[in-house]
């Protein structure tokens, strides 16, 4: 007898969601970033989440960025040629579900040698049409204090507001789409306190003098993302998304992302991903300033650039409740109009463990 497979479905927790269940997880990861611009960032992360009541969950997390850098930024503007800094970040959050409405709120605290940040966020998600449609809105407020190492008198503020909206739509039993939009407004100091801009007659000439980088004090940002997830066969899926971004500094960017998930065995999953990014320059960016202008920058992130990232990740179910992961990303950045650095390559590798009950 030849039997033909009709349906193979891996039923996850969402299918038993009507039944109250405790869901507790503990995540521990470390990610190491290293690039050809002599920058290394080691980022350990630990986080925990738990359902404290049938409709209420809380989460707590800690993240650190341990930075060592001798990039062209550092070399060109400071007496020290290598910096060491550590950023600490603590997050706390909670959510509660009222039937088809979910309310969430969170707080994030971040501190490093020369930067202090308090971020508050809140949001609502409403499920409609028998959960075929989910609409979400959110608000984010980040209050930042920018300092400068070894300079007690340097103290600037930066406030960031953003509102976002998302629409997630089930297209069919194997396809889901999402459209999101975010509007952000930044007010305050947005330059680098360490970055000085050479003023010279030509890009090959010796600088006549250096002036502090000066960016506009306000910035409106807009970003829209459309994404599509599609199951392929019985053990794989393809995800694709596109982001359009624009701001009133004149930067426009396009981001294309694609991910492919495939189950190699009952406890091993492979993810391949690809990301392409391209942006134009800010309106006030110049590769060389022959005179001092109102806004003047030496920031390559405001120059025209493109980047390419390819990554591989393996998730392995060690036991029913314990999952390990290993990932490696390779990336390349190209700067067509930034003389000190024309390209940057690097890797981003990580490993992690997730314990879930």
């Amino acid at each position: 007898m030849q039997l033909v497979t009709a349906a193979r479905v891996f039923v996850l927790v969402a299918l038993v969601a009507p039944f109250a269940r405790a869901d507790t997880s503990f995540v521990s990861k470390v990610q190491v970033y290293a690039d050809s611009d002599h920058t290394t960032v080691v980022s350990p992360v630990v986080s925990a989440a738990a359902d404290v009541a049938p409709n209420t969950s809380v989460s707590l997390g800690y993240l650190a960025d341990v930075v060592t850098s001798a990039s062209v930024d550092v070399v060109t503007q400071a007496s020290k040629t290598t910096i060491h800094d550590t950023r600490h970040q603590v997050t706390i959050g909670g959510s509660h579900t009222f039937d088809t409405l979910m309310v969430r709120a969170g707080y994030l605290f971040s501190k490093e040698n020369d930067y202090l940040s308090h971020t508050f966020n809140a949001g609502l998600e409403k499920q409609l049409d028998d959960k075929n449609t989910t609409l979400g809105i959110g608000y984010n407020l980040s209050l930042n204090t920018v300092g400068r190492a070894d300079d007690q008198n340097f103290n600037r503020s930066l406030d960031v507001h953003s509102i976002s909206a998302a629409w997630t739509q089930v297209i069919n039993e194997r396809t889901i789409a999402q459209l999101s939009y975010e509007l952000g407004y930044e007010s305050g100091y947005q330059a680098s306190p360490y970055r000085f801009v050479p003023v010279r007659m030509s890009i090959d000439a010796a600088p006549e003098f250096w002036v502090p980088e000066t960016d506009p004090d306000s910035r409106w940002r807009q970003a829209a993302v459309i994404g599509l997830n599609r199951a392929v066969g019985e053990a794989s899926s393809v995800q694709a998304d596109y982001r359009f971004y624009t701001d009133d500094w004149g930067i426009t960017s396009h981001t294309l992302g694609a991910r492919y998930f495939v189950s190699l065995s009952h406890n091993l999953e492979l993810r391949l991903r690809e990301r392409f990014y391209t942006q134009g320059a800010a309106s006030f960016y110049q590769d060389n300033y022959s005179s001092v202008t109102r806004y003047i920058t030496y920031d390559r992130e405001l120059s025209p650039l493109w980047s390419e990232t390819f990554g591989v990740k393996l998730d392995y179910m060690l036991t029913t409740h314990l999952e390990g992961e290993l990932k490696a990303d390779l990336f390349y950045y190209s700067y067509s109009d930034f003389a000190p650095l024309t390209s940057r390559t690097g890797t981003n590798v990580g490993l992690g463990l997730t314990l879930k009950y």
Partner: protein
Amino acid sequence: MRSISVGVAISLGLAATAAHAFPTGEQFDGDPVTTDGAGGIAFDGAPRWTSHTCAVCHTDPPGIIGLGIEADHQELFSTGWAANQQYHLRVVMTREHEGVQYASLGDVCGSQLMPYKPCDDNGFALELDDDSGNPTGKFVPVVSGACAAAGAMIPPDVDAYILKDGTAAVHNGAHHAQIQWDVCWTAPAAGAGTITAYVAAVDGNGGDGTANFPNDTLGDDVAFGAVPLAEAGAAPPPAENGGCNATGDASLATGALVLAAFALLRRRRRSQLALLLAIASLAGCVHVRPRQRATLAERKMVFAPDPQEDELDLHMQEAREGSSGGYGSSGGGCGCN
């Protein structure tokens, strides 16, 4: 992929609590009060039982196992079921992970052994209902690889037990460590329309490894779903109610619309974009019911399956690119000075 249904039961339970499962098929027919049975309910997710599944008792399943239905006639799942045709069906459980340490014992386990050895007990339930939610067709067990003839003597070690009222098939419980079960089903007469197979399975963990708790309902895994089967020669199953109808491959249509959106954005024709996006979801979607979301519930279908990784990646990208936003805010400091 369509979906699945639910069902199952395994375990056995000597515990004095109410958390007993059904190691044998007969217990599904047992009186709930006097024999701790199921009262004729298969718990396969069928609407007539308000979609209750084995997850009612086998709570907190990790959701790792998968579930499938196979048939000897491929067209059952393509062109549809044929009137009065008998189908040899096989319910297959994949990714078994509970109680597998006892699987090698096979049937050499249980309380008849001294010392006691736990069993790897799994189970299933299957029911096929018409559009009105009423069971339809006729089940018979598989005997020696073939569908049992009418009136034939049924040996005690077949895979499937047919409930007394004939409405569902469940595991017989004669053997342990089973991950697939065969049963035959004869389709009804023509005109019944779309039939839905509700199927479920339980991956039992063998209790706590002692004779005292061999088959409680805790620590097991569960899968369930529903598979719509069209009637051969009839119109395809109607789109489910929900205000939108599927025409062709919705995902392909949406993909084309994504590209069109990209083009409009480049031309800064934003008003047309809004209209386009509205069409994108309304033109190509169907109403997907909860029991049909097995695939959508998988991690690989989640837009942000790893928030910690996303946070790290977004923070890195936002520090090295001129853009930010749209995917959710990473917030919090710079890490890039």
